[in-house]
């Protein structure tokens, strides 16, 4: 059937001073009715700009300077502002990535959805209320009447995304653009949302332009896929064809970087434990007035785990499961209420702040957000040398050691003089790693070290981590929400849910034959489960 939306040789010019002249260069795409086209690419590839260009909601200074965008035969670039407004919401609707901030915090959900009808139809208030409630029903939000009156902050991330979808589909638009709608959600919620979009698309026959960076998602729901890099479409076609045997080198490299789900064969682990956690628990008391009406949340409840020497213990779970809190308890950034944390025989939990300050050199941490983990006002080399200087090494000597560590983590030793904002995300994580290794710790705690990176960069950092583990005999506690990454990196894994460890053991057995219902649900909801499995074996050599 004829394509409903066609991008014909579209180019979008960036304001001067950007890292490249054009966000989109000669992009041609076609989207037919009743079809999901996935546009996949890494950050900065121009995939989000495509969505903005179609809706003509480009940020200040960015302009379309070539090509046509045909919607039902009409070129949107030529439309006047008033007519374009009639298309937005009615003809083409859009949903966004951050459910937390995509809705106006000060107005109720029903009000914001109802506004779609107010804008484009002449319906009475009563009819609008009825239509809105029906929509909420359709997107299977629990208790639609309550959700109608609720404010955004009273709903969970998943529920808010459902509300966004209800808003988008209010006027049965011909085209739905979804700009990474599930990236910020937990795996289980992501699975439900993808299923919802899939069902609604089939029932209503809408054409969906789905933008993502996650190949799993592509495998899960895409009918056709287009791969973008640096503003150009490098490859497009049926999903099975493109994923099966990618033609373009860039596509092949991207797919190769996606860690498969089944774990490589287990390594022999030493029996001698280096770090043991016994009955560790931490509770938060918030609000309340003199004890009454306090809200108590048990972040970590009675966790007992063992990290063998030289092994990597993975801690997986969704957000709010307490895995980060546990990690911070290990390095005493947070003081657990009870329980012991033994490192080489010393119980870290019972040390005073002074004693902990000297013992901390044995257990170091790598953080998640590359942009926040380095002090912007301090040279990269100095950040790495700081730990050594504090523990008594002379400054010049520490700086030389820093240069060596830069080499160890694969960075140009001369870069120690540069400031953090001059490095890319991946390079910053390497600096974080160098800083952690400066004190030659026995145990390295890595809290989601790669989740903020693009897939290709992620693969390089994981490879580096693997090499260092071998060379330095590091024992690592690896915290992540991405089961694929855990499968490739960890020897043992513990699955946490609302503060408790529901299942733990060697990664092969836990992922192969999950015992606990939650683990099973977790594994089942990973998008594109089979996608990674086939090439599982082929990837082994690389890592």
């Amino acid at each position, binding site marked *: 059937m004829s394509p409903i939306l066609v991008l014909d040789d579209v180019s979008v010019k960036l304001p001067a001073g950007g890292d490249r002249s054009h966000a989109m260069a000669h992009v041609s795409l076609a989207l037919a009715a009743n079809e999901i086209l996935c546009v996949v690419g890494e950050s900065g590839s121009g995939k989000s700009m495509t969505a903005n260009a179609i809706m003509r*909601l480009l940020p200040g200074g960015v302009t379309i300077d070539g090509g046509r965008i045909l919607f039902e035969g009409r070129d949107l670039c030529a439309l006047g502002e008033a007519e374009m*407004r009639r298309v*937005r*919401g009615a003809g083409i*609707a859009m949903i*966004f990535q951050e459910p937390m*901030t995509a809705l*106006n915090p000060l*107005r109720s959900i029903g009000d914001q959805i109802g506004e779609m009808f107010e804008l484009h139809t002449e319906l009475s208030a009563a009819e609008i209320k009825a239509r809105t409630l029906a929509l909420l029903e359709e997107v299977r939000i629990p208790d639609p009447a309550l959700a109608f009156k609720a404010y955004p902050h009273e709903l969970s991330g998943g529920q808010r995304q459902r509300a966004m979808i209800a808003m988008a589909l209010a006027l049965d638009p011909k085209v739905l653009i979804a700009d990474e709608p599930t990236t910020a959600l937990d795996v289980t919620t992501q699975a439900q949302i993808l299923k919802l979009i899939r069902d609604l698309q089939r029932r209503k026959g809408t054409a969906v332009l789905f933008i993502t960076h996650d190949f799993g998602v592509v495998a899960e729901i895409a009918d056709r896929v287009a791969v973008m890099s640096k503003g150009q479409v490098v490859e497009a076609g049926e999903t099975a064809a493109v994923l099966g045997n990618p033609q373009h080198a860039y596509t092949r490299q991207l797919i190769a970087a996606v860690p498969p789900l089944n774990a490589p064969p287990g390594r022999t682990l030493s029996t001698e434990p280096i770090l043991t956690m016994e009955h560790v628990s931490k509770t938060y008391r918030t609000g309340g007035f003199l004890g009454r009406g306090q809200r108590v949340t048990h972040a970590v409840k009675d966790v007992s785990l063992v990290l063998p020497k030289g092994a990597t213990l993975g801690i997986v779970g969704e957000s709010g499961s307490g895995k980060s809190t546990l990690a911070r308890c290990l390095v005493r950034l947070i003081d657990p209420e009870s329980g012991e944390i033994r490192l080489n025989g010393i119980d870290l939990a019972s040390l005073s702040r002074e004693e902990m300050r000297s013992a901390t050199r044995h257990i170091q941490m790598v953080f998640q957000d590359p942009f926040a983990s380095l002090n912007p006002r301090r040279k990269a080399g100095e950040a790495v040398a700081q730990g050594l200087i504090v523990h008594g090494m002379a400054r010049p000597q520490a700086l030389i050691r820093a240069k060596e560590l830069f080499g160890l983590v694969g960075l140009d030793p001369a870069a120690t003089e540069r400031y953090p904002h001059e490095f890319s995300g991946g390079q910053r994580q390497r600096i974080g790693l160098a800083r952690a290794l400066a004190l030659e710790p026995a145990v390295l705690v890595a809290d989601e070290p790669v989740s903020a990176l693009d897939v290709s960069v992620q693969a390089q950092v994981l490879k580096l981590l693997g090499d260092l583990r071998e060379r330095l005999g590091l024992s690592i506690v690896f915290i992540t929400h991405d089961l694929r990454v855990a499968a490739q990196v960890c020897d043992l894994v513990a699955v946490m849910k609302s503060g408790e460890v529901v299942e733990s053991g060697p990664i092969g057995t836990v992922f192969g034959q999950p015992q606990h219902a939650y683990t099973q649900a977790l594994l089942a909801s990973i998008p594109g489960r089979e996608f990674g499995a086939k090439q599982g074996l082929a990837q082994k050599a690389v890592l």
Partner: protein
Amino acid sequence: MRVLTLAGRRLAASIPTLILILIGVFLLLQLAPGDTVDALMAQMGGGDAATARQLREFYGLDLSVWAQLGNYLWRLVRLDLGFSAIYGKPVATVIAERLPATILLMTASLSFAFFFGLILGVVAARGVNKWPDTLISTLGLMFYAMPTFWFGLMAIVVFSIYLQWLPAGGFEDITVSYTGLRRTFDIALHLVLPTLTLGLFYMAIYLRIMRGSMLEVLNLDFVRTARSKGMDETRVVVRHVLRNALLPMVTLIGLQAGTMLGGSVVVESVFSLPGLGRLAYESVIQRDLNTLLGIIFVSALLVIAVNFIVDLLYARLDPRITAGN
């Protein structure tokens, strides 16, 4: 309900603050050279040592500092603000007499500043970097940078003497005793220039805050969602941006209530308005501790009341507050 406990907590939290201020100022003013009797003698133009001693006993100034402080706090607990040396009347009645002028002036200037600050801020933000923005911002800065008393005096010269449109000062025209509506109109006429003088400075501040907060909110995600729903720019601003942009403005009212009374000292003396500002200035000069502390007590209550209203307003504007997180 929820908001009342929130406000109750604010009240409880400000009681220690209030006590802290009163004791601090009480001790501070003890160090000032001369006491209220010296000031009285200066005003009387003479008086022998015997009268001075008698007066000092009468005002209880012969007790030790700590005894005086103890008496004052003991009376304060019973909400008795003591006796005013300047006016020979209980402080409470003196303040009650002068409160209406101050409250009228402050509410008038605050609402003038807030209202025009808001509108000009929105206009400036809408046309950012174009001529309306630069014009409004520079005008705002001019009023901000101009010393208030200077503007006041110049305004009198232009509007009351040269053009004779507005009265040159005072709270109302008492040569002719108006009543009812005519009197309110007359008082309003007397308050136009003082409100302008005090209000323009604060309007400049609100204008800048509003412009900044508008630009901030216009960059948030939900504005992009609103646009993607096919809304025109005005509706986006009115239905979505304005209410979010108001939040910092409302908090500012709470913060500025205190400084406004300070500003009114100068404005009230230029326009000879019988307000608390000038009474405070006179009580410092006359070393009338009871009146000064009484004024500080009342102005602190005023500030707490304004902050209470700000809390209520904020809770109504932002549902997240009542949820208590």
